[in-house]
């Protein structure tokens, strides 16, 4: 069978002992071959005899039928011809001998079916598993287990107050997929001893479970027709660990590890049953593969010719098998080391379930096989090959791609950790604390750090798809602009290092495809595959884009969709799809003239389209404050940075790990909603904002700003671990928003905050001015009477002479364009014609 027990050669009764190097544990001497020397006083009763009814299948000469073997995979009652599907994932446990631990003889048939008499205990060799008890326990578990608090997606649509697994069995009878996934944590909470046995002796216990399930199932649904018998697939063994912590102790135990698929092999057909035909009399016989070996019958039983049997490949039975290489996921690794890889074998229907790049949780049995590569040599390389026979796959990123919401990879927090986090949250100054813990090496810039902190927490995700509006963006986007050398990049780097799913790109180096997705030929499968870019990769994270201004226009246009709709549409090489890109964007831009010009507006300084700018919730300027007290503090901070020891620093600031956990916890568990007062406060704030402008005839706030305010307020509530958004949150959101506006949307000509700078790219006064010039020009032309055409340069000079304010060439051209738009005139080369 599957457990690749390598060599047919070798004098030893190759057995499980070979498949599983004994690691100081007491199993491993397990050897079911008939020539086993010292079987303990086993009362060789064929307890399993009623089970072996499928005689045609087992009529082959089985050398090793010991009386005391239980045929683990054969069903007991009421199967109605549903064929058994072999379980190569469990290895060679089909025939496990039972031993009696006590010397008293058990009553002949009572071992499996009936209650055990006290004092006698029949167990499978090498374990402490008693088939009967085990089966009974598991049936009881299936029939009684209820988990009212379950919130697993798999259990959607099930009545939580009814026995969970009975409902699943019902599902099987309807759908006809004969696989029962069992959550090990359920087993543990129901029966800790059963759970221990399952973990320690999976290859004996799981077949027992199979038996139990099938009995139960066909009792309940005697008429169902299944492709093969139900197989139990346990998952989520609580011993979930990362690859690094696997050690020899885990061999032959059931484990759950997480990792990323890096390679999958072609499908490998593995022989399960060999078909032999006699060359003389055409008598045929079948031989099962036993631990990787086929015992070729030497004599034909029909005609007694020796060595006349030939293997017929076409009629032999094969099962599918696939090798998968799994690599440690980057989050689990200690810094400075390379990731480990493990070989995993998938069998039957688990083949091709995963693709390279998938992040998965694997439940399976850990195996180690010695390498005896050359049978002619007596020396053996003293190394074992290890692999995992997979029982259950679970993709961890599945929901990210298909599902609607919520992070699937919930980080598990220990009780103490949650406690410390909550204590921290209860402190009144938690907001300030956290913001100052952000990038401590960067000096001050309090408001910017606060903004970024709120971005890290994000708003609450809302779904309005029923009302036709679709998802509301919950992510906060921030743009930092300012003089070069004001540690913008450093801030970006810090954020990128802080968040689990961050991406860092530079506008200069990245193209539209690098940001979104591109189609490439996979070198291995030669198929076209979609390679996702930074924006998609940072789904649910933060995408840091440095040198935003250096980005090409086509690249930037991609961002429009991402930053508001949070999706990414792709139509390339026959692949048309829409990917989720619920990413927050943290961008940094330098002014065009390398130094920020305070006489110009933000738009003029960074030359970004206003359509894009209006999608940023907060735009901060990072300028040199030029103030003595600030300089002094800055100098002190920097000098300290250079000589303070690590400990001193740690005293002052929060640990980065704590901050990470705090954010992860809040993002996962806290979903604040607006309360009544907060809504009122938001409405007021919005109305106020609109009022400011209306006095001067301009609009100073748009619904987008209101949405920003809501997001910021929600994020602030998250910082406090509060489920309600209260007025304090709104106040802070207002303050921060105002601060950012004050910096970025102040009209340098008037000194007023003017939101239209960001929304239309031009301040209201500038627009008014433009109109005035156009009118003046029109008036001037009209005053000249009916002249069909005039010289461009002359007109410009005339206008300049006439106007009292200085008129630049730009302004003149703009005025001309405005008049051309009115269909009043047209400009051709150096002449201006009236229409």
């Amino acid at each position, binding site marked *: 069978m599957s457990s690749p027990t390598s060599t047919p050669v070798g004098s030893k009764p190759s057995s499980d002992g070979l498949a599983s190097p004994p*690691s100081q544990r007491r199993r491993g001497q397990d050897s079911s071959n008939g020539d086993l020397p010292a079987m303990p006083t086993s009362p060789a009763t064929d307890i399993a005899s009623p089970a072996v009814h499928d005689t045609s299948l087992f009529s082959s000469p089985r050398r090793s039928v010991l009386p005391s073997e239980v045929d683990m995979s054969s069903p007991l009652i009421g199967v109605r011809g549903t064929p058994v599907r072999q379980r190569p994932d469990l290895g060679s446990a089909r025939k496990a001998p039972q031993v009696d631990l006590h010397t008293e003889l058990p009553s002949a048939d009572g071992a499996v079916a009936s209650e055990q008499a006290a004092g006698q205990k029949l167990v499978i060799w090498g374990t402490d598993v008693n088939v009967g008890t085990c089966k009974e326990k598991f049936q009881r578990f299936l029939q009684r287990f209820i988990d009212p608090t379950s919130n697993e997606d798999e259990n959607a649509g099930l009545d939580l107050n009814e026995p969970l697994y009975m409902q699943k069995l019902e599902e099987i009878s309807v759908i006809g997929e004969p696989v029962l996934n069992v959550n090990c944590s359920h087993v543990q909470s129901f029966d800790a001893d059963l759970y221990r046995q399952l973990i320690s002796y999976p290859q004996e216990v799981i077949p027992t479970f199979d038996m139990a399930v099938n009995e139960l199932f066909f009792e309940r649904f005697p008429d169902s027709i299944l492709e093969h018998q139900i197989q139990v697939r346990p998952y989520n063994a609580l011993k979930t660990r990362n690859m690094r912590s696997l050690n020899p102790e885990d061999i032959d135990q059931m484990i759950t590890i997480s990792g990323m698929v890096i390679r999958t092999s072609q499908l490998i057909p593995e022989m399960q049953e060999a078909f032999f035909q006699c060359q003389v009399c055409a008598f045929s016989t079948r031989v099962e593969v036993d631990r990787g070996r086929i015992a070729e019958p030497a004599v034909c039983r029909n005609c007694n010719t020796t060595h006349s049997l030939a293997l017929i490949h076409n009629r032999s039975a094969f099962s599918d098998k696939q090798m998968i290489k799994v690599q440690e996921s980057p989050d689990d690794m200690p810094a400075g080391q*390379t990731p480990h890889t493990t070989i995993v074998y998938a069998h039957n229907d688990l083949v091709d379930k995963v693709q390279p790049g998938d992040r998965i949780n694997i439940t399976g049995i850990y195996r180690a096989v010695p390498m005896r590569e050359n049978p002619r040599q007596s020396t053996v390389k003293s190394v074992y090959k290890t692999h995992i026979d997979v029982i259950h796959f679970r993709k961890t990123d599945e929901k990210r791609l298909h599902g609607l919401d919520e992070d699937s990879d919930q980080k598990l927090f220990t009780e103490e950790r949650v406690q410390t986090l909550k204590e921290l949250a209860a402190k009144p100054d938690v907001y300030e604390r956290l913001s100052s813990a952000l990038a401590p090496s960067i000096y001050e810039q309090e408001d910017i750090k606060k903004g970024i902190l709120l971005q890290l927490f994000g708003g609450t995700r809302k779904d309005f798809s029923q009302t036709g509006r679709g998802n509301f963006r919950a992510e906060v986007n921030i743009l930092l602009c300012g003089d070069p050398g004001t540690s913008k990049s450093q801030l970006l780097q810090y954020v990128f*290092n802080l968040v689990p799913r961050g991406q860092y790109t530079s506008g200069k180096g990245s193209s539209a495809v690098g940001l979104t997705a591109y189609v490439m030929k996979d070198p291995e499968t030669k198929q076209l595959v979609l390679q996702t870019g930074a924006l998609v990769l940072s789904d649910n994270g933060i995408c840091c884009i440095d040198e935003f201004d250096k980005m090409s226009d086509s690249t930037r246009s991609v961002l429009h969709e991402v930053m508001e709709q949070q999706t990414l549409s792709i139509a390339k090489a026959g692949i048309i799809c829409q990917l989720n890109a619920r990413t927050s964007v943290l961008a940094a831009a330098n002014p065009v003239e390398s130094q920020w010009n305070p006489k110009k507006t933000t738009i003029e300084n960074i030359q970004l389209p206003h359509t894009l700018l209006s999608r940023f919730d907060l735009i901060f300027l990072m300028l040199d404050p030029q103030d003595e007290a600030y300089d*002094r503090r800055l100098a002190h901070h920097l000098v300290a940075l250079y000589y303070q020891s690590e400990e001193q620093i740690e005293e002052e600031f929060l640990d980065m790990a704590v901050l990470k956990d705090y954010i992860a916890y809040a993002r996962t568990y806290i979903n604040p909603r607006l309360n009544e007062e907060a809504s009122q406060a938001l409405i007021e704030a919005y109305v106020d904002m609109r009022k400011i402008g209306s006095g001067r005839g301009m609009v100073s706030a748009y619904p987008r700003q209101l949405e920003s305010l809501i997001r910021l307020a929600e994020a602030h509530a998250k910082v406090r671990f509060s489920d309600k958004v209260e007025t304090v949150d709104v106040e802070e959101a207002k303050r921060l928003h105002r601060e950012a506006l004050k910096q970025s949307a102040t009209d340098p000509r008037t000194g007023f905050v003017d939101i239209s700078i960001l929304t239309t790219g031009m301040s209201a006064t500038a627009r008014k001015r433009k109109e005035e010039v156009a009118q003046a020009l029109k008036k001037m032309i009209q005053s000249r009477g009916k002249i069909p055409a005039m010289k461009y340069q002359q007109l410009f000079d005339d206008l300049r002479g006439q106007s009292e304010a200085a008129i630049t060439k730009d302004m003149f051209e703009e005025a001309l364009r405005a008049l051309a738009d009115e269909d009043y005139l047209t400009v051709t080369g150096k002449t201006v014609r009236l229409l």
Partner: protein
Amino acid sequence: MPSSHDWINKPLGVVEAMFAQSNSNPEWEAKVLEYFKGQLKEKESHSWVPSLNDVPLHYLKPNSLVKFRCLVQDMFDPEFYMGVYETVDPSTKANVLRCGKYKDVTECGVDLNSRNTVTAERQTFYCVPIPGESPWAKEISFLSAARVVPSTSYVPSRQKRSYEEDDDDMDTQPQKQREPHTEPHGNGDSKRQETEAPSSQTTTPSDCSSHLDLNFPLPGERGPACLVKVYEGLDSFKLNDTLEIYGILSVNPVLTVLGEEKDPSLLLLNPTESMETPEEQRAHDPPASLVPRLHMLYARPLQHNNPLLPSAPTEDQSAFVSSFLVEMASVRAELLAYLTHVLLGDGLAAEYLLLHLISDVYTRRDVLPLGKFTLNLSGCPLNSYTERLYQIVQQLVPCSYRLSMSLHTMNSMRLVPKKDYVANRLVSGALQLARNTSLFLDETQLEQGQLDSSGVRNITALGNLISWQKVDYDFSYHQMEFPCNINVLVTSEGRSLLPSDCQVPLQPQVTPPNMEEYLTTIHMAQFTSQINKFRVYLSLARTLDYSISDEVTKAVEDDFVDMRKDDPQSVTAEDLHRMLVVARLLSLSLGQTTLSRDGWMRAKHIDMLRRSRTEQQKSLNGNEP
């Protein structure tokens, strides 16, 4: 020399004896380590152990104790092996317990089903000699180690040549020194023979590298690569660590045979084997004659690989340091004078170059590496001046590499290590360097043309290296960040296209008609003892501790505020960062471990000089940014 060298010649005997005594008490493992550590602690004893770096592999006895100075290039997956196993004697049927630790293969007749078998775990590291190790460092460690090699039959005859002489050879023909077998020695046959020994060592692997890629980070590197089996303290090792490993050499030919002769019928039945691609086989089980196995008994992390300095922080070293500190100022003056000559009489540039050479990332604050000091020497004369400059730098530092940034190399060279999933190994790149390696980026080689996508990636990688002192290794599904500590020196005509901490336009005071000759003469004028002093000085200054007193902190703050008062544009936070680094390096270069007011003023002063020079350059060139 002690009479018994059993622990060097037959370390396995020692291990087995201890195992036999232990009665399967697991403490024996610790005892073994303790024993070897103790032996190595003894004075001089580590110099008795032959080094894989110096002695050709075929001269070393199998299963003897050897040492290897190396860089951890890749870490393979952990493997399980039989720590203890039982063998059955076919004639007597007696069972014997055996120890499988520190061995690759087992004895005959293993009882695979024995219940006494203990499975244990170990990990394999792929180690290569320290990339870019300067010829002089190799030479000196070779000479000092080769004094006594009791466990080999190999007697190097090289020590007859004084290394003074070697140095001179190297200086005049450094290129040729790298390929010693082509070295044209006119001194007759005896000399010829002597150089033969090390060259045979270096050619052994290189001959075969055509079949087998030994995965050295830098092109043109030579030397033995080694698979090191690590048993203890797996977590304490990191990729790119430089280590001196003491371990048992295993070159069992079985390892090779096992890998190659394979019965195809077995492959069918043994799917585990067939799963390994041939590439993976080659990468993980290369023939032992090319890539020996080394079973680690003891490893010492190296702070530096300068053979002139005691390598471990022992009492030895502190005595050495304090004795050298006295000389420090004078050596500095001499070195400065030397560098000034080399930089065509430009004293300021020489000062900055000196500071650059002793810089070191001493700590990191969140993402910010502190202490890095990337220097951009702009205005370098063309025509192989930079090449000569590199050769001089190479003579001073123990590890260096010159990356000529021509368009072709930038487009074609692999700088960033990349994981090859087919062979399951980390394919090295030129940026996988040991700590404190001097990376010399020669931008004068850059010509007009277009960078392709890999060129852009390479430039980005260099930029990241300079700004953050990290390299993002390419794991194809994700990138992984590895912090590094590399001194980058950029030489360019104009301002470099790469970021740098500090740009110094070179202002030559002399224009020698024949540059080549000029530099050679300067170099020849230095005695080797002098050069050695410089070498010690540069390595030592880097390791000194440094602090700033509160008083000076205050002064610095005041100064900063004053400077900003006059003209806020003139000094930014960035400038303060730089000045603090300059002040630190300046103090260290003088052997002072605290910043004094004078030190600060000096730092300010030279920074002013430098800035005025760049301003000048700007106004001269007009459009130069």
